[in-house]
């Protein structure tokens, strides 16, 4: 009986990130994990669940609402303190950087809670990376599309072959010290103005 008896609540309006965290917690042996994506009715959920640990996204404006709940002793049965160990500035900085904040029932041994917070930090970072990669992939796709269009315009207007059109774009990019996608975008914009 190491982890399974702790009740953990994850509040995150980002459903994908929440499920990434949930998965991590379950893999670590936590059985009582609840995810809330919808802020409405949080007070009631907290009352019924009486969670030992609450993990919430730092970018959520609803943190102030939680602070209020914790002030009302009648709705939350036990006082809750933030972060595991105030003296552990390194892990606090890591959590804040990753955008994780946590509320922990006072009196809970920190050895029991620290792995949970560490895991949340790792998963938040992983989600960030995932999102960055997705954005990069999307940008790459957009860039490829605009280069294709510019190539088509050059081929049609200047009677170039595909290779020649590509070489012209690349050469112009090098001469102007710009990205090929930027040059391609100017070609597309110019063409839309002229035609």
């Amino acid at each position, binding site marked *: 009986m190491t982890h399974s008896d702790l009740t953990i609540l994850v509040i995150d309006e980002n459903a994908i990130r929440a499920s990434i965290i949930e998965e991590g917690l379950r893999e670590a042996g936590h059985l009582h994990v609840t995810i809330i994506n919808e802020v*409405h009715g949080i*007070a009631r959920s907290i009352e019924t669940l009486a969670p030992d640990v609450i993990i919430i996204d*730092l*970018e*959520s*404006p*609803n*943190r*102030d*609402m*939680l*602070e*209020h709940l*914790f*002030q*009302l*002793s*009648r709705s939350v*049965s*036990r*006082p*809750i*303190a*933030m*972060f595991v160990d*105030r003296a552990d*500035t390194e892990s*606090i*900085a890591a959590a*804040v950087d990753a955008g994780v*904040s946590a*509320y922990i029932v006072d009196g809970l041994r920190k050895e029991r809670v620290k792995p949970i917070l560490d895991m949340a930090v790792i998963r938040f970072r992983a989600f960030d990376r995932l999102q960055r990669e997705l954005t990069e992939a999307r940008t790459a796709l957009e860039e490829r599309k605009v280069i294709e269009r510019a190539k088509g315009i050059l081929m049609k207007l200047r009677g170039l072959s595909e290779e020649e059109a590509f070489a012209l774009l690349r050469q112009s990019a090098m001469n102007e010290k710009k990205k090929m996608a930027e040059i391609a975008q100017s070609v597309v914009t110019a063409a839309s103005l002229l035609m």
Partner: protein
Amino acid sequence: MTEAATQKTSQTVPLSAPQTTRMEAKHLRAGFIPLVDASVLIAAVEFGFAARQGLAIDLVKDVSWANVRDRLAFQQFDIAHMLSPMPVASMLGLGSNPSPTITPFSLGQGGNAITLSVRLFQRMEDTGLITAGSDALANVKALASTLATMRAAGEPMPTFGMTYPFSSHNYEFRYWLAAGGIDPDRDVRLVVVPPPLTSDALAAGAIDGFCVGAPWNMVASERGVGRIVAAKQDIWPSAPEKVLGMRPDWAESNQDTVARLITALDEAARWCDQPGNRDALTEALSSARYIGAPGDIIRHVLDGVFHLDAKGNQRVVDHYFRFHTDQANYPRPSQALWIYSQMIRWGQTRFDADVVAKASSAFRPDIYRAALGLPDTLAANDLRVEGAMERDRFIDGMIFDPADISTYVAGFPVRAEPEVPAGSDDI
């Protein structure tokens, strides 16, 4: 006790000559929440007052007061736009993550208001107790009568929004309700709603009213979903609002920077008070980097022109914002103690003669005076009796003597049961 508190305050930081200024931070990170009462801080950066003092300030917009508090505590921010009760709560160890915080500079007075849903206000008008031009006290009495009718009919109690448990909004909303005989813990439900969401929450019927800072009351009234029923000035004209918060150890090791900062903010505050600068200020504030609300609404707010509702009822509030005049920047310890009195009144803490000095030490006029070269004789007023002057009257006519907090709190007919303060019913 009064004397002890004064002594304690002036002893906390001996203002020795600034050490080597090269070691001090000249590049500061400042947290703020998008509200018009962050104007002085924003103007100090936007209009060159900070640069003139050799300071580069990065303004970082944040989404919650809890974040602002934590980022200041964990040194991600050097200074922050804060609710005036936050440093007091921190010094008293209240809240989720209390870490010592002081303020040597108030960012001004005013800016808050209470708005109720148009539907609820209609029912108040139906009581025949008020008309469109009624004052804040008449309005709350009409609300009390409406609530009694609702209770008798078995209707659910209304839900009202405010911003944070340790906020001027919480205490002002409660003060106003209680002045009308309404118990804010029994007769209504108080919840926290992030300010930018208040007018949507009101429109959706999730809340029936709220108390927040500008421009959000005006946003709701101009959208036609809310009716403004009280301004901060109606409740207590010289109530403190936002302050500039910092860690006491940081203030201690950056004395020269703090002095420059206060000089820059003092100049920015004078500038903000000039009606001729409102166009420029409006333009800066309405940008998405800061508040991101319509410029015309922000301009109305700065002018104190209240569109009470969407029907064209107007009210002009003189000095709705007071950025500098009338000692608006002086962090008077009696204000910190008034905040403490309201924390006791509503069961957030108990009265303890031993912590009075701790509560008042959150406000540091000694640093303010030293930075601006003001005489220490001003300290004679640091623990002044509040609400005694006619132009500084509390809505219920009570007078706050910081030397006798417990008698003051006991004198309120509506207050939390002293037997069950928050946090005492542990299981």
